């Protein structure tokens, strides 16, 4: 996944309204730390770079390079698992 990509959740995948859980076909993925917040940004329009910017604004004092790395690593794993699409 690169910074210009505009990922979205795959069909049939959605965030649980209250729990830190991604509902997927035949199962759930437990979301840890900021994962839920990151996935909540995915709409198929917003780029990864812009999501990183948004998060950097919210988490003042956190190095945006670290945020970028966390976001890319989460999205790569989710893409491999087939629950995030570019």
């Amino acid at each position, binding site marked *: 996944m690169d910074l210009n990509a505009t990922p979205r959740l795959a069909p049939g995948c959605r965030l649980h309204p209250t729990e830190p859980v991604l509902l997927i076909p035949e199962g759930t993925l437990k979301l840890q730390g900021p994962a839920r917040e990151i996935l909540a940004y995915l709409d198929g329009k917003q780029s990864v770079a812009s999501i990183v910017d948004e998060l950097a604004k919210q988490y003042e004092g956190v190095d945006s390079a670290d945020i970028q790395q966390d976001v890319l690593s989460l999205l790569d794993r989710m893409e491999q698992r*087939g629950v995030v699409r570019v």
Partner: protein
Amino acid sequence: MSCGSKRMPANSQSPPPPKPFSLIAEITHRCPLHCLYCSNPLELQRADEEISTGDWKRVFQQAAQLGILHLHLTGGEPLARKDLAELISAARDAGLYVNMITSGVGLSEERLAVLVDAGLEHLQLSFQDLDETTANHIAGTRAHALKLALIPILKKYPLAFTVNLVVHRMNLDRLEAFIALAEEFAPDRLEIAHVQYYGWALKNRSLLMPTQEQVDRSLPIIEAAKERLKGRIHLEAVFPDYFGSFPKACVGGWGRQMMLIDPVGQALPCHAAAVIPGLQFDNVRERDLAWIWESSPAFNRFRGDAWMPETCLACPRKERDFGGCRCQAVLLTGDAEAIDPVCQYSSHHELLKLLRRPSENPLPIWRG
């Protein structure tokens, strides 16, 4: 566990059972297909005794309150229920994730659009074979072409799509081509499931049982496909029970993860549980789901380890397989409390070797 004795009845145990994760709703046993490997019971529930739309709506609300996340609408053929869209909509309103397992027979684009609009999120379509003649032979009806025609329509709608390949002796030699065909459909998920010998399928066991050679050849094919499809199609494969050395955690453990409601409202811990003598199933017409989950004698019957034979009690694997499959134990040994015969420590394990031996030209038996 607060009580000291291993032989205390399970329903006096604390802590309370874990919360269920999924609800399987067999909304009807009516089905246009007559698959040789049908896992539904021999005695199907009658259409005029099916529970009402209102009953199901209440069940879905109670299920969500109980913490259930996933609803699997199945049958028979769920499309046979005229109130299907209403049921889907009620389940989504309750907060459930809605999956439907269907033959696709009778699913027009108009109806699919209505179901997706109602909130259907995932659809599972199974294929009996890659060749039309054999697929129809196995399904006992001409369904294959209808399924093929449905795929481009499904792809137009925003829902997850799983292709389910049911494998057995008659098609396992064509597994590579079968996977290649499924790949062309470009589903989100691909399930390769061996026939499980419960319900009607048990009648056709000698016809459908794969050979050891077939199973051995299939495993690397599946592994290679998993690797090749990674990131595109999520592949899950179910290993054939009779070829194992240790049992599976059947339904994630008895009364641990899932609950099944049959067409007349009976609540079962698994879809084959009616084969176990002496089990009585509470009905959602009379009891709410939370009561059934916690207090129904059928759900408590094999919870925990109080029922287990000594070998299982002493075995560390009991934390992983929860004693395996009770239905398999009763079907193969006559004793529902016996060690699952798939386990190498079962005195009946040798029986599986006999049952795996190909028999001579068995004839298919279709449901009438």
